[in-house]
């Protein structure tokens, strides 16, 4: 079954080969970027990136941008 999540505010069908947060980041080509991941409004520690993504998860990928 395809998992459907909310990813940065958009509905996103998770490819079947993507199981974990780490795999999602690799799939999105973000694995080397400076970022923080929130899942269902809770920050995921980098050590927990291997945890599975669940259907209907709300994932936010956050980073630093220019600001004063």
């Amino acid at each position, binding site marked *: 079954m395809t998992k459907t999540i909310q990813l*940065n*505010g958009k509905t996103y069908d998770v490819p079947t080969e993507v199981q974990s947060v780490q795999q999602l980041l690799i799939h999105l080509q973000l694995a080397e*970027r400076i*970022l*923080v991941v929130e899942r269902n409004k809770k920050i995921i520690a980098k050590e927990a990136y291997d945890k599975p993504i669940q259907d209907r998860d709300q994932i936010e990928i956050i*980073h*630093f941008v*220019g*600001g*004063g």
Partner: protein
Amino acid sequence: MLTIGNRSFSSRLLLGTGKYPSFDVQKEAVRVSEAEVLTFAVRRMNIFESSQPNFLEQLDLSNYTLLPNTAGAKTAEEAVRIAHLAKASGLCDMVKVEIIGCDRSLLPDPVETLRATSMLLDEGFIVLPYTSDDVVLARTLCEMGVHAIMPGAAPIGSGRGILNPLNLSLIIEQSNVPVIIDAGIGSPKDATYAMELGADAVLLNTAVSEAKDPVKMAEAMKLAIEAGRLGYEAGRMPKRDYAVASSPMEGLLPN
């Protein structure tokens, strides 16, 4: 030296990283400014567009202390959430509490700023609240144990300079932590003036990023802040109502 929490800096210029015309100009402006503290905002990544360059990722982070702001937050809870996200990056433990209470003036919400500051101090953050030039509010924040206080010179991005030097002087006089004049600086003279008032540092962004030549302005601001600080340490002469001749009155040549 400027000491904030457990960190010391030789530069008294803190530089914002928003709104530069290009990354190359920004990199050069940051370099010549000799700033050691750079501010950033925390935002949702635009992951659905092809790989966008990110300024932070182009910096040698070992040379800089990152000061994330909580811009975008309108409540203490939102600010705390942003602070948590910033800290989770593992890149910083300082936070600039910035909670806007008025969309038109971008002036800070004093009540939410106090609440967020209290919550973040309890959690062990190094907290630098952006505040108005209200003297009593600034004192309250200092008493709460903030690590620096950042009163605005004028509304963010307005470039109007030091609007209330008296209030800023009173805040500086009473403060037991560094006072960083943040927001509203428009030109080097504003930065010098802030430092002459006795501020410990200046945080600015638009004054450099929106200058015709941001790199040159970054250098100008660096020099202005150094000049203002030296002038403050030197102690200026008193102001008088009447002239006092600089040349001796004795030994005047006869007619």
